[in-house]
């Protein structure tokens, strides 16, 4: 199979190499920050499959991130399964949930779609609080010490080590990035864009656009779950804050800033915004005002985000 868009492929490899080297250059604090950025970037990349490539704006992706967090966290906490198994459980939970929600939500479009995904997500959030005896509610649950390390294929990984966490996050990020390269830059990716650009046309070229959208929705939710499961297990804590509305907005914000419908946009957006929020919250508690203002600026003047603008002006292969 020949690789289409070789330039983008090389850029992805270079990015991964750069991220690997980064851990030797940065302070411990920043390594930790970048660990979080990588995981959240996976979340945003999942969101981008639906919002950027397929053109469907969901306001409920916190529920899929949350499904990953809880699917992984609860099976580790209550069933005591090993971390890799718990990780898989989280991903499966997110895939199952997103398939089901997709079946229903994709019957609506545009604004109704946003509202329906938001409602489902809020319902999921409230369920977590309602069953707080089991889920830990807003207090959350801290995973036991036994769940802070695992061995896979003879490799011992200690989840309290910064180096281990960074490289684990980078590995997952790399797998998702290359997987999404194959998914979005091939024929299926072209169909997603076709639905975004003109759904009616795509239907009249003989495609079941509902099936295409459901595929995008499930892949998108599943990847969000990958991020959630990794986040919960890596930091040993699960709580309802992971399924809050704010989480959905973050995915939207990161994707918008970086460039919807560009493969690396979510990484750029997540990196920039996370570091910015980090700095701002040191200066003022009202940092959300700045975020809001920035969102308006991006929407008004750079609707295609940073990488999207680069793509439109100079680098057409950046998609």
């Amino acid at each position: 199979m020949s690789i289409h868009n070789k330039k983008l492929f090389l850029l992805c490899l270079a990015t991964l190499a750069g991220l690997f080297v980064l851990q030797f250059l940065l302070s411990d604090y920043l390594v930790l920050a970048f660990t979080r950025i990588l995981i959240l970037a996976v979340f945003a990349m999942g969101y981008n499959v639906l919002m950027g490539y397929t053109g469907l704006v969901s306001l409920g992706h916190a529920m899929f991130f949350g499904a990953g967090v809880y699917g992984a966290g609860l099976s580790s906490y209550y069933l005591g399964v090993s971390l890799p198994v718990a990780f898989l459980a989280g991903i499966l939970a997110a895939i199952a949930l997103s398939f089901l929600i997709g079946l229903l939500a994709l019957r609506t479009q545009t604004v109704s779609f946003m509202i329906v995904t938001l409602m489902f997500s809020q319902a999921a959030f409230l369920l977590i609080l309602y069953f707080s005896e089991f889920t830990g509610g807003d207090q959350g649950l801290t995973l036991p010490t036994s769940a802070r390390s695992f061995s896979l294929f003879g490799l011992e990984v200690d989840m309290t080590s910064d180096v281990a966490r960074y490289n684990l996050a980078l590995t997952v990020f790399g797998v998702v990035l290359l997987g999404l390269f194959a998914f979005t830059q091939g024929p299926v990716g072209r169909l997603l864009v076709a639905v975004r650009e003109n759904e009616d046309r795509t239907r009249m070229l003989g495609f079941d656009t509902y099936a295409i959208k459901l595929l995008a929705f499930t892949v998108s939710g599943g990847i969000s779950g990958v991020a959630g499961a990794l986040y919960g297990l890596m930091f040993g804590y699960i709580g309802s804050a992971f399924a809050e509305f704010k989480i959905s907005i973050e995915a939207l914000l990161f994707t918008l800033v970086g460039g919807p419908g560009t493969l690396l946009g979510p990484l750029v957006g997540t990196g920039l915004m996370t570091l910015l929020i980090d700095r701002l919250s040191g200066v003022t508690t009202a940092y959300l005002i700045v975020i809001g203002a920035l969102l308006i600026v991006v929407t008004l003047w750079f609707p295609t985000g940073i990488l999207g603008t680069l793509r439109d002006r100079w680098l057409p292969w950046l998609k």
Partner: protein
Amino acid sequence: MAEVVLLKTKGLTRHFGGLKAVENVDFQIKEGEIRAIIGPNGAGKSTFVNLLSGRIKSTSGSVEFAGEDISRMPAHKRVRKGIAYTFQITNIYGSMSVLENICVAVHNRLRPSLLSRNHVSEDDIEAEAAEAAKTVGLGDRLEEVAGTLAYGHQRLLEVAMGLALQPKLLILDEPTQGLSDSEIANFKEVVREVNKTTTVLLIEHNMDVVMTLAEQITVMERGTVLAEGTPDAIMNNAAVQAAYLGASA
């Protein structure tokens, strides 16, 4: 060519509330034909072909295609059966290149299942798409962004996407609207070329195009078929003249 009926409707009806957009239409088209549907604005021509393509659901009546009842089949499946529809208002993927636009159509034909294994390579798809572009005269514009093409070229791209499906029946909804005279002349050539392999159903206002291309003409008025016949017969049909000119017959 044997006289095989490709598409047949019986009592096809579509009401929008109290409006009878299409009322009890019996229609058939033979394989290999170029058929034009004409009629005043609001006669129900577009609604009728939309009922054929499945974009609009019928209120009652049936549609039979190649001997199969497709009345309840969703639009995308009808396309796979061989009914291609090109839009009245040019409806392409503006941000994609010409080649990519056509690739979407070829993709459907060569690899119908969404998650099937990779039997057909991307190169094969592109080669066929380039071929379809050449047929309509867009062969040297493959990499241009579709949205930046001149209007006439966008219309040709629209046709190329229909062609790339290799349909049995190609429905063209007002294809020459907004084209210049020279573009229309070229377009007529394209339709003749296409007709060698495909049955063509054409909604058209330009009488010159209709008279030179169509073998049979169906005239619609107020949702029903007013007359049907050869171009000459239609020209001299009193009822048709009345409908168009408002003169008493």
